[in-house]
């Protein structure tokens, strides 16, 4: 079989428990995002746009929605004769089986998948970040610096640096040390959880790590420190542009407000680097005679009669007359009837808010669980 230059492995097994109700029924990478996407679409589209045609997706926590969304990868052009997309859940063997114990262990358990393509390089990604990035440029950097591992980094404000894994580099960008969530950060270069490894090296370290009973089998905690300790050549690749880990309800909401900010650098509307997704056939959005839209994102299948201010509206949503939606995220097929006020809320799929209601107090983010019916508050006379 023909050899592949670089294979991508996307870590998509995490629950993302801090997203609360949103990840009750699906893994974090499958959570809807940005009006018509799911979070993993960004990593998948980056791969597709970067010319990578072989992608393994490591799944574990509630993968059904993710599997249904990805299918055979057609939206991202991954329905290939050679290569394409493979979802890789944990599996049984003759001597038992294990859940994926950590990020490194997930890749370790699938070394046979990688060996099948015998790649020169392996790109390890997280399936739950929002960003647009050309991995070809990172690979070029990796090759030009003859690195064993290249880690994408982004400059973060010093005040926030202690929330990230911080890379301390020399003047040439060679990583000297790595600190996970340091109290007193020495640098502001945060790891984005995007790695390119020369495959031979990666394989060696994954096998050694698997033999170490005390290891947590994690890239950040074990593999990277072990490689650094052995003086492997580790290089930082600086990325500038929008990048966000939407790990909490607050950051999820903020990332959506980022999309609406006039000077946002998410570049969602820049079609030179499209984000692809799997879509249902729906008609165009209908905007009614008295509707008012202000700084909002609306998409296919929506019917809008009311006001939508600073909000993101997913496909197939109905918004009734005299209803005002502000600073909110309304997910697929939600129905918000007439005379409803929704502020600073996240309304999940298939919710029905009956007429005469108020959702959200405008301060804390209100989340309405999928499928819920909020009964009308109109007084019965």
């Amino acid at each position: 079989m023909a050899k592949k230059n670089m294979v991508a492995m996307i870590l998509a097994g995490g629950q993302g428990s801090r997203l609360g109700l949103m990840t009750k029924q699906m893994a974090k990478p499958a959570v809807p995002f940005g009006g018509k996407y799911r979070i993993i679409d960004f990593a998948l589209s980056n791969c597709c746009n970067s010319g990578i045609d072989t992608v393994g997706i490591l799944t574990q926590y509630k993968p059904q929605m993710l599997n249904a969304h990805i299918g055979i990868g057609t939206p991202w052009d991954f329905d290939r004769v050679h290569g394409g997309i493979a979802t890789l859940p944990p599996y049984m063997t003759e001597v038992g089986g294990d859940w994926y114990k950590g990020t490194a262990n997930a890749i370790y358990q699938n070394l046979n998948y990688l060996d099948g393509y015998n790649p020169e390089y392996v790109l390890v990604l997280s399936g739950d970040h929002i960003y647009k990035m050309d991995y070809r440029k990172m690979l070029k950097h990796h090759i030009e610096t003859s690195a064993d591992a290249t880690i994408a980094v982004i400059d973060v404000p010093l005040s926030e640096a202690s929330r990230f894994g911080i890379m301390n580099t020399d003047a040439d960008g060679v990583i000297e040390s790595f600190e996970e969530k340091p109290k007193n950060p020495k640098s502001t270069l945060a790891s984005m959880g995007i790695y390119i490894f020369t495959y031979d090296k990666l394989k060696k370290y994954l096998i050694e790590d698997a033999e170490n009973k005390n290891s947590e089998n994690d890239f950040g905690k074990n593999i990277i420190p072990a490689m650094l300790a052995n003086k492997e050549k580790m290089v930082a690749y600086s990325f500038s542009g929008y990048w966000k880990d939407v790990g909490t309800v607050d950051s999820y909401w903020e990332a959506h407000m980022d999309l609406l900010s006039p000077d946002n650098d998410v570049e969602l509307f820049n079609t030179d680097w499209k984000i692809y997704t799997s879509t249902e056939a729906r008609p165009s959005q209908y905007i009614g005679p008295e509707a008012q839209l202000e700084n909002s994102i609306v998409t296919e299948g929506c019917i809008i009669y009311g006001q939508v201010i600073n909000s993101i509206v997913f496909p197939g949503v109905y918004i009734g007359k005299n209803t005002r939606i502000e600073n909110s995220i309304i997910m697929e097929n939600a129905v918000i009837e007439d005379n409803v006020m929704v502020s600073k809320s996240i309304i999940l799929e298939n919710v029905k808010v009956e007429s005469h209601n108020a959702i959200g107090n405008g301060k804390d983010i209100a989340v309405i669980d999928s499928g819920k019916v909020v009964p009308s508050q109109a007084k019965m006379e």
Partner: protein
Amino acid sequence: MIKDYMAIINLAENENDIRSLTTNRPIASIPIGSRYRVIDFILSNIVNCGIQNVGIFSASNSRSLTDHVGTGKAWDLNRKIDGLFVFNHGLCDFVNHDSKLLKNNMEYIYRSTSDNVILASSYMVCNMDLAEVVHAHEASGADMTVVYKQTDEADEEFLNCYTLDVDEKTNKLLGVGKNIGFSKKANICMEIFLMKKEKLVELIYKSAHNLNSKSFISFIFNELGNLSINTYKYDGIVLCINTISSYYRSNMKMLTPEVSDKLFRSDRPIYTKIKDEPPTLYVKGCQVQNSLIADGCVIKGKVKNSVIGRYVDIEDDVEIENCIILQNIRIHKGAKLSHVIIDKNVDIEEGTELKGNETFPLVIEKKNLFK
């Protein structure tokens, strides 16, 4: 779901009165309803009733059409068994020589395993349950069933379409005429025919050997004396796309819930080519009223009573009223448009004012991306 049927979409359609939109394309691939092409409706009707074998017979100007339908993926017709077949015609006068194209590709019809066939045109836009028509056809025992729409607007709509003289008691077809807009009431032929495959083959051979070349449909109607033809009265919404003004009115009708609720139903979706556009951004200060807007747009100006296609940028201080804007268009600052149809890839320069009217909408033709 119906079995044992294949479908043939015959695009020998009269383009005389819709020329400015068909310079580079057949009627079938004219953009309509903000994100669709005319052919999407009949194609979706066909696949929604379970048919998996569709042949499209088109003329030589089919680049736009073949680009749109591709492998049939959007309609789930990229099949190993059956699927989508597209046939092109090299002759100029396709409308009067369509039987020849059908005959030349007879092997396709022979090889298809279905015993029955639905023959249809694309320009009658509707969302029809074809399974119901099939049941009525089979119950009738006739050689053929033809679908018609009874209308009270025949003086304005459906001009030049075939009209059917129907015995309303037996549903038998008695005679055929043309709608010259003389009376309001008429039974308009929707150019959807159901018959046995062997009957179709017989008619194609006969028609191709007929020295007086004419369209295949008119040949079928000439054979009325030798056939038992049953009719099926369709009660749904039909939009006939054969003139610029009917095209304009049809788009505008899609702004009313009475029409859009019937055409766009979640149980029988209309499929179209996926273009992966981002959602539409409504910038602060924009004003959008009673309009159908596709994805991929950025809207800053005013839009009223209009149908806007995919990837349209509407800048500040633009005023658009009663317009149809097709895809990939930028309307620069301060432009004022009313009753205008703007075809693909056009840039409307800053401050431009364009005005048509209800009966004669102004058409700005498609701009080629090459020189």
